[in-house]
């Protein structure tokens, strides 16, 4: 077996390292734009201490079913974002994921695409899932185009489920089946 699951072209998947990563993760949470694009909860800046605590709580809540990757740029090994898989339902073969690039400077460079390709391979060839699910918001056109480009289908539109900037927006769910992924360019 020579397939490398954690080594991409420009990025790699690494374990979260609280000492190294909490500082930069904290910085991202001070960017409301970043929070609006990725978070359902109210925007809340977090100190490095709270980043560490939140990570520990997520790990504990997951009862061992915890798949969390820090995305690192290979050129200088800095953290550029994260990808994590949660709520794995082994009996049904489904899980939910979240993926984000922290700094606007690192977006629109194909790093997110590479991370998603790696995450899809992990979901379908390591966890052996039947399908993979994620969520975004009506106002996040970037995420919708990104998911569609990678073969996801819009499956659920919860009308007016998000209240932001003085109006309601739809909450969207996207899904991709293993068989759809296997036929896509991402699996090659």
């Amino acid at each position: 077996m020579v397939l490398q699951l954690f080594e991409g072209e420009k990025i790699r998947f690494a374990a979260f390292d609280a000492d190294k990563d909490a500082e930069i993760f904290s910085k991202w949470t001070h960017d409301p734009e970043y929070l609006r694009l990725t978070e359902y909860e109210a925007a809340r800046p977090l100190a490095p201490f709270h980043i560490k605590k939140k990570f520990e709580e997520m790990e504990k809540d997951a009862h061992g079913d915890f798949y969390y990757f820090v995305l690192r740029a290979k050129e200088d090994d800095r953290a550029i974002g994260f990808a994590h898989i949660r709520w794995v339902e082994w009996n049904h073969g489904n899980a939910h994921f979240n993926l984000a690039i922290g700094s606007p400077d690192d977006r629109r460079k194909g790093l997110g695409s590479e991370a998603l390709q790696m995450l899809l391979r992990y979901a379908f060839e390591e966890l052996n899932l039947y399908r993979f699910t994620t969520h975004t918001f009506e106002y996040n056109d970037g995420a919708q185009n990104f998911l569609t480009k990678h073969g996801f289908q819009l499956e659920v539109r919860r009308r007016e489920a998000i209240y932001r900037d003085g109006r309601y927006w739809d909450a969207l769910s996207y899904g991709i089946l293993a068989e759809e992924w296997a036929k896509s360019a991402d699996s090659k």
Partner: protein
Amino acid sequence: MNNLFTGKLTRLIAEDPDKMGEVIERWSRDSEFYQLFDSDPTLPRNAKRATERMREHAEKNRPGNFPFDVVRLEDERIIGEGGLFDAFSPHHNAWLAIGIGERELWGKGYGTDAVHILLRFAFQELNLHRVNLGAFGYNTRAIRAYEKIGFVHEGAWRGVLKRDGRRWDMITMGILRAEWEAKQNE
């Protein structure tokens, strides 16, 4: 003012871990009930352990979770469980769950009655803008009941459940406050 917790056939009481242990042990012997109610593998439950688990849950419960037991007015018997979950967020919505554990009472309007109480609580006490729910594709009885109550189909996670050897959708439904209010005046 109406009694918020009482409907025509049922009323809602606080989830009671001490009473529910025995009840859950009995309901869980019917494997179909928890297949209709939960996507976790269906399992026979032990009363004492079920009570302990419910107590642990209650301690961790976030303030936006409102779990209830459903009591039948006729004989004060606990016949189901349900509630509203994740109701405290900036987005004014919550997830609804309902299950009638007593098989001989299925299809008699008890679940619908309890959902009416939960919706009134959601819109008139929590002042939410919408209520969401997830229904398993094979639970046609529930889906029809939700449609009648006024829930709208909003899509489905394709094939997300595997049961009885085949794939089923998980259907998301929702009702907006304005839709619920219009129904009250019908």
